[in-house]
């Protein structure tokens, strides 16, 4: 009968479409972004951060970078604590993405110092020589428009001060996008809670390694350390590395746990063996500065 009655067919089709829609799309509004989802410490974006987020959207960064860490072992080890619903309540729209041509950015905030980001955006291959990330140094040439940004945070209902708006006049788009990236995933103290405790005695398994052995570990240094500490440990974004300044155990802890407050990332995910190799390289390699 419905094959002869178009209005009836369309009503039936609408009903068929709406069942799944209501259950899986409308109904979740009851549970998502509610008080139960709330996480203390998650704050709205400042005007500068929100503008950075809008630049991130304008440039389509989401086409290559995701912003959600899944509760899977390799993923948590690589990026950090898995993402929680309450962390995204101020995101309009969400920017979780669907493809990782580049790495996930959900836990990027606070991982590197601002100087690292400036250098990386200006010249990505200076940090990752074979990267396909395009350069975004040109963002530094674009001034921000305080009045437009004020209107944005007003519409979003985010709190702001006149000082914050006035300050925007002195900033450019690069400052904004870096401010945004430094906030990502950093509202919850996951680095402190995820920090591993080193138990037992630390013993250098490679004590007495000769210079040839040390030289073989250089690629490890180059792919993880040289971007900030220089090709020959002469320093750059991070300080010069002088082996004599540290004992083996201190150096191991600094690399393994990082120094979050100074922008030195933790390298626990390299594993103890490779961290020890770096310790020996930094302390005892004679070709590289020592």
């Amino acid at each position, binding site marked *: 009968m419905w094959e*002869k009655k*178009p*209005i009836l067919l*369309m009503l039936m*089709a*609408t009903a*068929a*479409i*709406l069942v*799944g*829609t209501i*259950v*899986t*799309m409308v109904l*979740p509004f009851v549970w*998502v*972004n509610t008080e139960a989802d709330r996480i203390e410490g998650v704050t709205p974006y400042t005007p500068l951060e929100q503008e950075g987020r809008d630049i991130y*959207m*304008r*440039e*389509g960064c989401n*086409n*290559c970078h995701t912003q*959600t860490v*899944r*509760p*899977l*072992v*390799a993923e948590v080890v*690589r990026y950090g604590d898995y*993402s929680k*619903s309450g*962390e*995204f*309540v101020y*995101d*309009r*729209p*969400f*920017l*979780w993405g*669907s*493809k*990782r*041509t*580049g*790495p*996930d950015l959900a836990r990027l905030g606070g991982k590197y110092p601002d100087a690292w980001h400036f250098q990386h955006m200006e010249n*990505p291959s200076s940090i990752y020589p*074979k*990267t*396909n990330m*395009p*350069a975004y140094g*040109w963002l530094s040439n674009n001034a921000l428009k305080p009045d437009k940004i004020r209107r944005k945070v007003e519409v979003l209902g985010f709190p702001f001060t006149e000082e914050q708006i006035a300050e925007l006049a002195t900033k450019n788009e690069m400052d904004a996008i870096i401010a945004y990236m430094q906030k990502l995933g950093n509202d919850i103290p996951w680095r402190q809670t995820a920090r591993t405790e080193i138990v037992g005695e630390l013993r250098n398994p490679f004590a007495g390694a000769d210079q040839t052995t040390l030289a073989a570990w250089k690629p490890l240094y180059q*792919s993880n350390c040289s971007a900030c500490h220089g090709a020959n440990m002469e320093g750059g974004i991070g300080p010069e590395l002088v082996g004599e300044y540290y004992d083996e155990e201190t150096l191991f802890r600094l690399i393994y746990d990082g120094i979050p407050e100074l922008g030195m990332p933790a390298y626990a*995910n*390299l*594993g103890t*063996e490779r961290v020890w190799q770096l310790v020996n390289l930094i302390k005892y390699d004679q070709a590289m500065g020592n």
Partner: protein
Amino acid sequence: MGKPQYHTDIVKSFVNWSLVWGVVAVLVGVIVSFQMVNPDLNYPPYFTFGRLRPIHTNAGIYGWGVGTIFAMFLYMAQRLCKTPLWSLGLAKFQLWLFNITIAASAVTLLLGYSSTLEYHEMEWPIDIMIVVLWVTFSINIIMTIIKRKEEQMYISLWYMMAAIIGIAILFTVNALAVPVSAFKSYSIFAGTNSANVQWWFGHNAVAMALTAPPLAMFYYFLPKTTGVPIYSHRLSIISFWSLIFMYLWTGAHHLLWTPVPDWIQTLAMAFSIMLIAPSWGSVINGYLSMKGQWHQMRDNYLVKFLILGITFYGLQTLQGPMQAIRSFSAFIHYTDWVPGHIHMGTMGWVSLVSVAGIYFLLPRIYGREVYSIPLANLHFWLVVIGQLIWSTSMWIAGVLQAGMWNAMNADGSLTYTFTETMVEMYPYWWIRAIGGIIYLIGILVFIYNVYMTVQKGKEPAPKLLEVEGRA
């Protein structure tokens, strides 16, 4: 009974313009595939991967995909209803608005006005244009159906009506936003809700734009081409209703392991598996309609396009549900595997059926035989080979990438840094780019064939026109 005076000029225009946008989509696709292997090919601020990729997807889906759907629906509706279009004026308005909207989308995306919602990146003024466009089209089709001279509505008309309603609901809800300026708005949905609404839209845009309409075409063009009816009417009824019911539950399979509530993910996973049944209902119906007609795969190039098209649809609807399983998604999601999957659907299924439709239409709208069957065969092999290179290279790349991302040493540390995993992708990205070029050449051969048909095609045999009279 005299033959109704069908409107064909409007169909011609939609065919031509969808071809224009199709070439734009494929060309931009080839460009961004080279940007992925060489970042120096990004020319900021406008010609960067981040801004061009949405132009590729939207020109493909809306310019080429929906453009062809417009052409085919305006053609099929008239024949299936045995009456001219309800309003030719409205259809002409629709053509103008369609081209303005697609052009405006491309320009605004290039300028960086993007909502970032995938396949819905256009900002709010364009969204309004799209809604008006869809309403214009819907009214014309629905009124033509209401005024029809044929009481029974054929299968293709069911799929058309479902698509009309589905896209209207999906697009409008996902577009809801508060404007802050002429080309900037903020979604009314935040965070996890925003994600869930977007993928309810995203996945069902695939259902309502890239599944239902090509199925409408397939159910129409296959019997028209082979001369034998669809094998089982009952199977097509079951497939239709279960397809449009089940699809809407599955959006969250794009969000497995994310903060979206687990029960939504589980429902999406279960319904994705169940969706194999209605999808394969159409595939099997297509295959069985070929009973006793398989020799036409050799004799009739159009059958080749249609049967390969429905075969890729069958493969797509097995691979898709597999990816929707949590454990498999954990491994493969976010890798290059997924673009490989999508392109089998768009280049394999949707485009093969759409071009079959266009080849079928050419003699009937231009009154000329297709210029060259050998060229059509060349076109067929180029696009199929191009697409297979494209997809298989990305599937292999995706498995490699996923394996490297997950590789861990005995002490629980990661084996590879992210950069090390990315560098391994370069050879596969090169192969993909080459696949894209082969595909593009195939499209250019097709367009040359269409152009020559219009310019130099022979007058069709009178028999063809008789067949047309019985439409």
